[in-house]
């Protein structure tokens, strides 16, 4: 009797996880298709090479659900904004003015600028952090970072490696700082 219960319990749990994974994959397909279309318009086809990263992150987030997904859905908005950041902001020496004045660093990596832009984006996420219970804040913040990263990764297509690391690293650092600030503010208002 007990063995039957255990067997049914394990089978039901497995079915639950597989059901969530199936749903996560189908939702990930929709998000990835939309992100792919937006990327192709904003950055060109070359950037879509990073779409598998978006697909994997989104499938994971949808499968886990709960506060991770709640945070990630909000992070999508910021990730989308990063797609439309002009290259001249991420790489100032590539702006027409810089090119005209003879500065040419388009072939060298400038991680510091990208890290700065990423950190600014990350810090702006403080406004979007969901009001999760105390024990779940880390999960919500991680979701926010993953949701943002899922789309911001697409921005990395036209960037150099150092810039990519800078942008994503800046984003993560910004999210971490924003989460800490939000936790501090919540503690003060509680």
């Amino acid at each position: 009797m007990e063995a039957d219960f255990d067997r049914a319990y394990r089978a039901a749990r497995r079915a639950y996880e597989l059901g969530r994974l199936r749903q996560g994959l189908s939702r990930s397909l929709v998000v990835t298709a939309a992100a792919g279309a937006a990327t192709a318009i904003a950055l060109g086809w070359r950037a879509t090479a990073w779409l598998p990263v978006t697909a994997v992150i989104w499938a994971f987030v949808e499968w886990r659900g709960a506060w991770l997904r709640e945070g990630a859905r909000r992070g999508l908005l910021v990730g989308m904004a990063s797609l439309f950041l002009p290259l001249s902001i991420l790489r100032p020496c590539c702006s027409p003015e810089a090119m005209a004045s003879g500065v040419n660093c388009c072939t060298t990596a400038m991680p510091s600028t990208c890290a700065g832009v990423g950190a600014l984006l990350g810090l702006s996420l403080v406004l979007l952090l969901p009001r999760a219970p105390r024990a779940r804040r880390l999960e919500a913040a991680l979701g926010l970072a993953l949701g943002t990263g899922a789309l911001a990764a697409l921005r990395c297509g036209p960037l150099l490696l150092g810039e990519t690391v800078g942008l994503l690293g800046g984003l993560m650092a910004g999210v971490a700082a924003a989460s800490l600030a939000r936790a501090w503010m919540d503690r003060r208002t509680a």
Partner: protein
Amino acid sequence: MRDPDEDELDGLMSQLAQGERDAFDPLFRALHPRAIRLARARLGPTRADDAAQAALERVFARAAEFTPGRPVLPWFYAIVANEIRALAREGGAGRAEAERSAGEAWAVEPEDPERLLLERELRRAVERATASLDDVSAETIAALIGGGARPAIAAPAFRKRVSRAYARLRLLLGGSDGG
């Protein structure tokens, strides 16, 4: 441990649908005996455990599709009954068993306490599902199951209403599997 009431079950299922794994254990412990009871009543004791397990796998595989805020028991019984019916057909049973599996007969006596408990809960599940429908559909379903007077309209109009009410109820119970 105390058996959760219907509202608590609704809450647990809503949490599980959103990915809160902590809700799995209490929910499974509450739904497992219900699935066994229905499987025993419909198929008899020999096939009940396997049928209940298959039905529960189906329920939990579809947990992510559950709409939070809706009553869980009508949705649960719709899936379990459908699964048990399908399993009975797959089993290649004779005509009598096929009829029983289609919900036209019980494998236990009418006075069986488990059956009485089950019938009461099934009736309550239908009432809860019906209460979620619009007034006209709810009135139509109530008239069909003998819980209210048939509205004073022509027979073809009533048939149309029944068809619409069934479609809405089926949707509420989880799409085509809820039929």
